[in-house]
């Protein structure tokens, strides 16, 4: 299974539709402080079903919608689409290519799509959870979190091995 591309539109500092293609191997994302690199990672978390605004550094979920600058008005919709190559059927869904979309309106309405079909947030969350890419997996290590693996007590660490098991 591979990430093929992610499209951000109105998500945090990505006011305009922006696409990042992912190749095999190692992709590095670089840029100055505050340019939006961690925002890309949060877009990935969000489209994979992140339910806590705090895990996206916000107070409320609508903090992810582009809120404008001195020169630009805010927008009313944040949308992220993720395209995955699933030809090994790693994700338990009968498609060789999987597209996942999430949209949030400023009025609070949310829309979720799996291969263009409307679905529930739960469907997206379960898809990743059932394939071992859920919240407890190590698929995303956020900024400042690398040592989180140590901060837990020895007893709490066991959940790492239980998840892996």
């Amino acid at each position, binding site marked *: 299974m591979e990430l093929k591309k992610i499209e951000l539109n109105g998500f945090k500092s990505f006011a305009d539709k922006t696409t990042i293609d992912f190749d095999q191997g*190692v992709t590095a994302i670089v840029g100055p402080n505050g340019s*939006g690199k961690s925002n890309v*990672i949060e877009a990935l978390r969000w489209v994979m079903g992140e339910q806590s605004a705090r895990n996206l550094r916000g107070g409320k979920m609508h903090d992810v919608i582009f809120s404008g600058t001195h020169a630009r008005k805010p927008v009313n919709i944040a949308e992220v689409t993720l395209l995955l190559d699933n030809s090994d059927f790693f994700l338990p869904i009968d498609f060789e290519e999987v597209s996942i979309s999430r949209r949030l309106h400023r009025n609070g309405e949310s829309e979720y799509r799996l291969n263009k079909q409307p679905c529930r947030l739960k469907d997206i969350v379960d898809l990743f959870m059932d394939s071992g890419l859920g919240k407890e997996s190590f698929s995303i290590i956020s900024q400042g979190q690398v040592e989180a693996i140590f901060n837990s007590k020895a007893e709490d660490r066991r959940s790492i091995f239980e998840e892996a*098991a």
Partner: protein
Amino acid sequence: VSQRFKKTFMDIKERFSQVFPQMFGGGKAELKLTDPEDLLSSGVEIIAQPPGKKLQQLSLLSGGERALTAISLLFSIIQVKPIPFCVLDEVEAALDEANVARFGKYLHTFETDTQFIVITHRKGTMEEADSLYGITMQEKGVSKIVSVRLQEVDMTSLKN
């Protein structure tokens, strides 16, 4: 369940004892069950000994040594239970140049098993990347993507 936990633990334990010295250029480390008799609730202790040093509690390790130990453990876990992709946001911030070089090279040992997306300011990590994207804010407050060759990387975004 506890059998599966034990097998996974033993596999990760074995890998960790091999990955750590590769990352540190020496030394040793191990994972220990706090209560081997009680597999259902035993915790896991991490013991690390950088090259040439005596075994000491994790808290006494330096900032860079702790980060590299955590990275070694993460890599051990995903070698035992592969995930298709792994996203790392500036995990090597505390490492010096020699350690960044080993970290960067190690990313390639996963070959096609795991796709890595790394956010980094470090030249050493960038040099190991197969592809490089730059994020800029030419228009203040608005992010844009550019695909870059290493030579073009805006030097002000590098950490030197």
